[in-house]
């Protein structure tokens, strides 16, 4: 039972254009969402997060949008740069009395930005 799904295994984008990575979830108890970026042979690096009380959070070239009614979030990267090429993971948190760090991850989307 995949509670967090990233349905696109890969995405290819031209440098300078917008990259849009999508994520769907099924558990309505999730109340905090994060995006991580991962390069080969490295651990995931935190990018941006959003609380369920918001519908948008922006940090430089990265914006995360949350649509609670649709249980959908997306990460927009604009403009995309070749250095953005990596695997992007969507993650959701349901503290449930433990911690925000108990995350449920999607399968990841490989982003390739072409010069």
């Amino acid at each position, binding site marked *: 039972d995949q509670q*967090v799904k990233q349905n696109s295994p890969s995405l290819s984008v031209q440098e300078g254009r917008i990259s849009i990575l999508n994520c769907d979830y099924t558990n309505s108890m999730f109340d*905090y969402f*994060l995006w*991580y970026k991962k390069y080969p*042979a*490295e*651990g*995931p*690096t*935190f990018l941006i*997060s959003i609380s369920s009380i918001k519908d948008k959070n922006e940090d430089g070239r990265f914006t995360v949008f949350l649509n609670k009614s649709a249980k959908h979030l997306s990460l927009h990267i604009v403009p995309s740069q070749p250095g953005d090429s990596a695997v992007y*993971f969507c*993650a959701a948190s349901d503290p449930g009395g*433990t*911690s*925000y*760090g*108990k*995350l*449920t*991850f*999607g*399968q*990841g989307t490989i982003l390739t930005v072409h010069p």
Partner: protein
Amino acid sequence: GAGVSQSPRYKVAKRGQDVALRCDPISGHVSLFWYQQALGQGPEFLTYFQNEAQLDKSGLPSDRFFAERPEGSVSTLKIQRTQQEDSAVYLCASSLGNTIYFGEGSWLTVV
């Protein structure tokens, strides 16, 4: 150190061997997590510590997996009698607030 440090980075174990993976969290971080990442998948939660207390071990796949953090800092994940399906990257993470910082992982291959 500045980040979460894990050792060994790479480990090849023969089936049936016991392994121990070490995690040194960011100094002062109260919360520590272990995740398992199989090839082509996202990380999956294994266990969580707050200081030395193991508050959640619901993700440990079997009783061959054991984690400890006796002094509330360094943690060790031990896997007994390793099996081929244990081959994965084991990620440690620590946090003080809502942001979770991951180490580079320990790559375990069981042959």
